[in-house]
């Protein structure tokens, strides 16, 4: 009985002492927030925001003016500039309001971690994935990627996600945390050239060697082709006809659509001149 009573008494003392200490800390923190500090903080936030916008504009303008060979390298530096600005702004803000003694750090991180963990779980996951992606580089600004069914050029690398410009000129925002659960297909992986796959379908009776010659020549004679990279034609038999796949490289990934159009246009003109016929529609099951 005595032991039990003593135990409750001891816990009560510890509890009240902790509450009063936390209260004091909060009070101390609030006392530290002055009008001057708030003004400085606002100034830092505005400066960081302007810096982010300016870095984006400068990087984009410079990358479009310099030789294409360096375009992607300059574009890919955007996330790094942003990260630098964010880190500088965050450190400045924390220095303004937080006393970095071990006690304060423990007190802050303990409560902040719980709050952030529950309220911004997905956001935090995206931010962490974004940092991981900076090092692993599954995609960079300027790359042509396919992620979660969306295909296009990465035009912006943000804190939370990326923005890609699709072939239909739509801007799609994709959070970085898709990296944890989805596969990312990267067509050019930081290079200016990218492989382009173009499908052709012809009737069973066509001269296959002649078709392969035409397709190979179409790729080698396109003004958009990077002819120093291989051109491959593969053939597959289907119940309704013969499918040909032309794999070749475009000199600048931005010209992908024009390149494909050029290949199809010239190849089909040659097919027409050769008198090749096309298959009927596949039978619906």
């Amino acid at each position, binding site marked *: 009985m005595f032991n039990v009573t003593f135990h409750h008494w001891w816990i009560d003392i510890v509890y009240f002492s902790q509450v009063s200490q936390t209260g004091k800390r909060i009070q101390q923190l609030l006392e530290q927030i002055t009008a001057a500090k708030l003004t400085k903080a606002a100034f830092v936030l505005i400066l960081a925001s302007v810096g982010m916008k300016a870095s984006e504009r400068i990087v984009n303008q410079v990358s479009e003016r310099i*030789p*294409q*060979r*360096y375009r992607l390298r300059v574009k890919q530096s955007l996330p790094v500039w942003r990260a630098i600005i964010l880190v500088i702004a965050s450190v400045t803000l924390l220095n303004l309001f937080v006393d970095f003694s071990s006690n304060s750090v423990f007190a802050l991180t303990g409560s902040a971690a719980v709050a952030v963990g529950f309220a911004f779980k997905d956001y935090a996951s995206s931010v962490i994935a974004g940092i991981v992606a900076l090092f692993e580089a599954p995609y960079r600004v300027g790359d042509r990627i396919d992620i979660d069914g969306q295909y296009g050029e990465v035009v912006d690398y943000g804190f939370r996600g990326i923005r890609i410009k699709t072939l239909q000129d739509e801007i799609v925002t994709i959070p970085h945390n898709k990296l944890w659960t989805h596969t990312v297909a990267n067509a050019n992986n930081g290079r*200016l*050239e990218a492989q382009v796959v173009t499908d052709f379908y012809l009737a069973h009776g066509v001269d296959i060697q002649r078709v392969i010659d*035409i397709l190979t*020549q*179409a790729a*080698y*004679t*396109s*003004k*958009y082709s*990077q*002819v*120093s990279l291989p051109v491959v034609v593969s053939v597959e038999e289907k119940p309704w006809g013969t499918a040909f796949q032309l794999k070749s490289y475009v*000199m*600048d990934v931005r*010209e992908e659509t024009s390149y494909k159009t*050029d290949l199809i*246009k*010239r*190849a089909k*003109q*040659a097919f027409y001149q050769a008198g090749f016929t096309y298959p009927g529609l596949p039978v619906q099951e």
Partner: protein
Amino acid sequence: MRAWLISSQEKSEPEISLEELPVEITESLSRATQALPSPANHREAVQNALSQALETWQKDDEAENSLVVLGSPAEDVTRVLDEVLKANQIPSEMSVRRLPAARVTDSETIATKLAVVAENASELTPDKQELVVVPSLSRYFLRCIGGLEGIVYLRDRIAQQRSRFWLIGCNRWAWQYLDYVGQIQAYFEQTVSIPALGGGEIKEWLQSLRNETGLDFTEKMPEAERAYFERLAESSLGVAEVAARLWLRSLSYQPDNKHIVPEKVSFPNFRDLSASDRYLLYSLLLHGPINLPNLATSLGETESEIHPPLRRLRQVGLIEGNSSSLQVNPLHYPRLRSELKQNNFLVPGEN
């Protein structure tokens, strides 16, 4: 540092009042540069390589029966070949047959047309006494489906007819392209490059022109003159045609004593190029002088589509000629070469 030294040397020369070269003098000098024979070391390089190749071929049945002469797209390789042949240094027992220098235009019948030209000659002589000259290989293909048939025809014909020797001219850009698309170097292993000119060689080459025109040129101090021609060689990448144009551009006129003074070597302003401009200019450098319909075919576009960029580029002087023969202005070649290389186009290592 070197540029500063040169410019300080130039500055140290006494100041004189200079004007732009009068139009009639510019035109007369321009005509004279076009009429100049190719530089002596160009002819010597080709002549030596040809003599050696012919000698080996006549002695050895397994030896190469062709020699490819490679030059810059801003250089007239055909002219060098013609001058070498005119110099009468080919063995007297050999007959020389020259295929037409004009472009074989119709891509569908390139091979047939070439066959007619190549086979119409005298019967094949088994004793190796015929030299066939292909003035410019870049005029026997067009970058389109079927446009490489002429090259395939020549390639096969040359491999089969070992009793003929083939002297082939080609620009390096076309050669590199043909090698990627048809591994042409595997068939024609024997090549010789037209060498780049140094400062002294350019000076010597232009000296004859100064003597012939009878115009008065102000002599620079020896060191300044050496520096001037070195810079001319460096800026022109050692290409004769470019050097001649840059030299002409650098000349000023001294009205007091009617003397012509070589001044600073400089390129004209170079406007920003769009992607379509670059594709068009690359095509012109690949094919050499080409007419409008063929250029459109090479770009996979219609004539009306290429008209606007073509017109723009002609207005700023990047392209010269008319619709029956368009070509890149050699004056812009060095900077254009660098621009295309920076933009991921295939550009050979040499000039």
